[in-house]
């Protein structure tokens, strides 16, 4: 019997193709809006996570000075010293490695090409804490670090600007007034938070201090926390140690700041998740509106087909059969709209994800959920018109003009 009702419903839908298409348009748009929003939201979350991971997982960054709040004067805070890094590494047990960094923007030259980029001096710990991999060549070693040798590892962007597609390892570039041998090429990380992570040259800390910056200042500390160690305890310990080393009296504000990349990642992803949910909810409202569209058309259809319903009842159709026919018609329309919406949404999501440069992640849960929701809307909004059809008086219905 259900099969027959389905057959009747399909015949009825087929009899008025244009109207059926227009009817389901609302559901198509609703379903695809929900799926697109959630899929792109997922992609954005994933993209943030990827970027944080590329910065280095479990990374704490210590910088001199406070982040400015409203009404705050920029405090002139002293830089760090290389000994600060050693102190953190040796005195705090939950720290895996500390890389002191000293950065400066410099124009580098290779034959006729020049490129202004960030030159960062650090130790080899910088590469591990920052999750850097090599595309070719090698990192610098302890001997080169201690001696302050003129060697460097360059990022992909620098390579592209100075060397084109050539292998840069073994070549010499000019940094300020000295020649520096390229010993390694970093594997590309791409963009992270709108900044080109590959636009970088890394040299031994001492080389940068002596030959580029001309001071033994350290402008930042990159601390990687041991896996499984408590982050809050580590952060507290670093804060206490730095206050002590920088002679900050009790009650005085810190003149340095500590940024937890994982914390940022979590904050950002939860923000995006909330945004995604909001957008999804708005999209779900359009799905509801689509449902009302179906009800509207079904009511028109019942009125328009009053005579037909009369014929069916006269021939011997039972109330529940007429009800089922119209209900199935509504559900079939809604589900059909759901399927079209699903296909369209995923196609659009692939294109949109590519356009806004986030990964496309197929989310089976939201696809199934939207489809079920669409079908459910067919049941809910189809029931009232269907009931109205089923309860028609056959004599009146047959006489209806």
């Amino acid at each position, binding site marked *: 019997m259900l099969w*027959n009702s389905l057959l009747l419903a399909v015949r009825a839908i087929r*009899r008025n193709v244009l109207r059926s298409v227009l009817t389901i348009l609302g559901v198509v748009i609703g379903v695809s809006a929900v799926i697109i929003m959630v899929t792109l939201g997922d992609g954005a979350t994933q993209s943030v996570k990827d970027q944080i991971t590329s910065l280095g997982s479990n990374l704490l960054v210590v910088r001199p000075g406070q982040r400015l709040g409203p009404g705050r004067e920029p405090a002139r805070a002293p830089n760090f010293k290389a000994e600060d890094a050693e102190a953190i590494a040796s005195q705090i047990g939950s720290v895996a490695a500390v890389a002191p960094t000293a950065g400066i923007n410099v124009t580098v030259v290779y034959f006729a090409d020049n490129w202004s980029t960030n030159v960062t001096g650090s130790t080899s710990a910088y590469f591990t804490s920052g999750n850097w991999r090599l595309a070719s060549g090698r990192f610098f070693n302890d001997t080169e670090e201690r001696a302050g040798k003129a060697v460097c590892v360059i990022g992909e962007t620098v390579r592209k600007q100075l060397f084109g597609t050539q292998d840069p390892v073994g070549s010499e570039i000019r940094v300020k007034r000295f020649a520096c041998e390229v010993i390694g090429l970093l594997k590309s990380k791409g963009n992270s938070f709108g900044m080109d992570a590959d636009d970088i040259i890394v040299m031994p800390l001492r080389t940068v201090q002596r030959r580029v910056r001309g001071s033994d200042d350290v402008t930042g500390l990159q601390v990687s926390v041991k896996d499984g160690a408590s982050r809050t305890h580590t952060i507290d310990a670093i804060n206490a140690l730095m206050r002590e080393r920088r002679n900050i009296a009790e009650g005085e504000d810190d003149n340095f700041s500590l940024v937890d990349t994982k914390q940022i990642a979590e904050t950002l992803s939860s923000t995006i998740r909330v945004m995604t949910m909001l957008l999804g909810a708005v999209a779900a409202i359009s799905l509801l509106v689509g449902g009302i569209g179906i009800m509207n058309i079904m009511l028109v259809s019942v009125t328009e087909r009053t005579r037909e319903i009369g014929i069916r*009842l006269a021939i011997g159709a039972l109330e529940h059969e007429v009800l089922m026919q119209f209900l199935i018609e509504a559900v079939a329309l809604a589900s059909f709209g759901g399927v079209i919406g699903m296909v369209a949404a995923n196609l659009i999501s692939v294109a949109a994800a590519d356009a806004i440069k986030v990964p496309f992640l197929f989310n089976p849960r939201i696809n199934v959920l939207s489809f079920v929701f669409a079908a459910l809307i067919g049941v809910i909004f189809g029931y009232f018109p269907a009931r109205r059809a089923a309860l028609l008086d056959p*004599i009146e219905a047959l006489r209806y003009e």
Partner: protein
Amino acid sequence: MSTDRTVAGSPRPLLELRGVTKVYGQGRAAFPALRGIDVTVQEGEFVAIMGPSGSGKSTVMNILGCLDTPTTGSYLFRNTRVELLSRRQRALLRRHYLGFVFQGFNLLARTSAIENVELPLLYRGEPFRQRRSSARAALASVGLDAWETHAPAELSGGQQQRVAIARAIVTHPALLLADEPTGNLDSQRGREIMELLAALSREQGITVLLVTHESEMARYAKRVIHFVDGFVDSDHRNGGSA
């Protein structure tokens, strides 16, 4: 006027109306459409119901078709008291024993002739193959074997009424109710439809009840009942004519 005969081999009553009245509306607006009808129809009869408009012939048709119930009195269909049945039971009775032909054909638009004819079988839950072959046979018996895939809009009025008749007889009903079946047709088409109904009655033994106001069409029936003002005015057999 017919008397019940229960001797084996002789006609049995298919339906009986006993003191049937029908009142529409209530209180002062009450309008009596039927004022006490007693009619008995035997199996296999071909009866025409005639009368001017407002005489109650449509009302009696609705009651006989189990679409409506009498206000008082009793309607027996094969000894079942129809007025005691629920809406659902009456629907099932229609499904299994009755066939309808209307003045306005009442075919489903944009639906092929064969799908129209299949419709009652669909509600009976018959499987596809059986449905198709029965529908095909019914269409052939009204002379429309070549028109199976045509939609009503592609058929003439006479052809549409033939499709409607095929739909009514595809279930081999005990009773075929035809409400002004020739009303929308010219006299030539009308006579063809009447001949078809007469043939169905004669050859397949289907009891046919016909409502008409054209005496020319009523001549095809073997028995004519005249209604006037909600009463049976006359009830006589046609002599000789087929």
